[in-house]
């Protein structure tokens, strides 16, 4: 299946209040072993034909990420990792 994944994360130097909020909430759930949390976007692009990584990169650069504050990673979907529920 021709799915390309673009992961967009805030650049490390940019403050991530959302991740911060989650990190702060964890102790209340009894979680102490997580030192930091970053929250970004996972964007799945379904291609009609063959997954086109260069095209995906172009789209990410132009539209999906604002490279002033964000960086992105391109990969072809590999559905490992166990899906829940």
């Amino acid at each position, binding site marked *: 299946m021709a799915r390309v994944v673009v992961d967009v994360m*805030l650049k490390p*130097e*940019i*403050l991530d*209040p*959302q991740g911060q*909020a989650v990190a702060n909430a964890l102790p209340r759930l009894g979680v102490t072993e997580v030192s930091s949390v970053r929250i970004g976007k996972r964007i799945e692009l379904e291609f009609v034909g063959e997954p086109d990584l260069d095209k995906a990169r172009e789209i990410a650069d132009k*539209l*999906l990420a*604002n490279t*002033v*504050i964000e960086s992105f990673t391109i990969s072809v979907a590999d559905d490992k990792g166990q899906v829940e529920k």
Partner: protein
Amino acid sequence: MKIGVVTFPGSLDDGDARRAARLAGAEAVQLWHADADLKGVDAVVLPGGFSYGDYLRCGAIARFSPVMEKIIDAAKGGLPVLGICNGFQVLCEAHLLPGALLRNSHLHFRNRDQKLRVENTSTAWTSGYTEGQEIVIPVKNGEGCYQADEHTLDALEAEGRVVVRYVEGNPNGSQRDIAGIRNEAGNVVGLMPHPEHATEALTGPFGGGVDGLVMFTSVLASLGVKA
């Protein structure tokens, strides 16, 4: 004088911006996102709202609309452009202004009457204020936290390109309390607060302030009209 107000799908304060332009004495002209035509307007307002739903990133999609292509060129040619809230976000996405606007640091949408200090009056949109003047204009945004790298921020400060600053409380965590900035030439200004919501005593900020009207009279003045 004609002030054009762009309507993107999802624009919300376009009607208010047109009303503000009228109250300032201009002719308000609606510009449609899909028309690559500025209808001969003398200045442009990119209004607040949620263009295209603002789903990906505020302003990210609007920036690619046909009317924006024209506005980007015209702005580089000196056309006065004011980006309000979502409009500010569009201007940053279009790289007409540096930096970006992120999720408010407290993660909430916040609507309140906000005190601002006018830091720079050498722009098409703030010439009617006096430097250091304190004004009250509503803010209402979820992603108004201005961010740029230190180098850019220093440059903005050094070149007097910080136009308005939040005072008595920063509503969104914006760096250096920045509420609005301008380009080098001063014809392009972007700000998070909503001057169009402070143009009538009846509906303006609590207490009846109309401080926002000056932005619209300023541009008329700068266009050589008695405001």
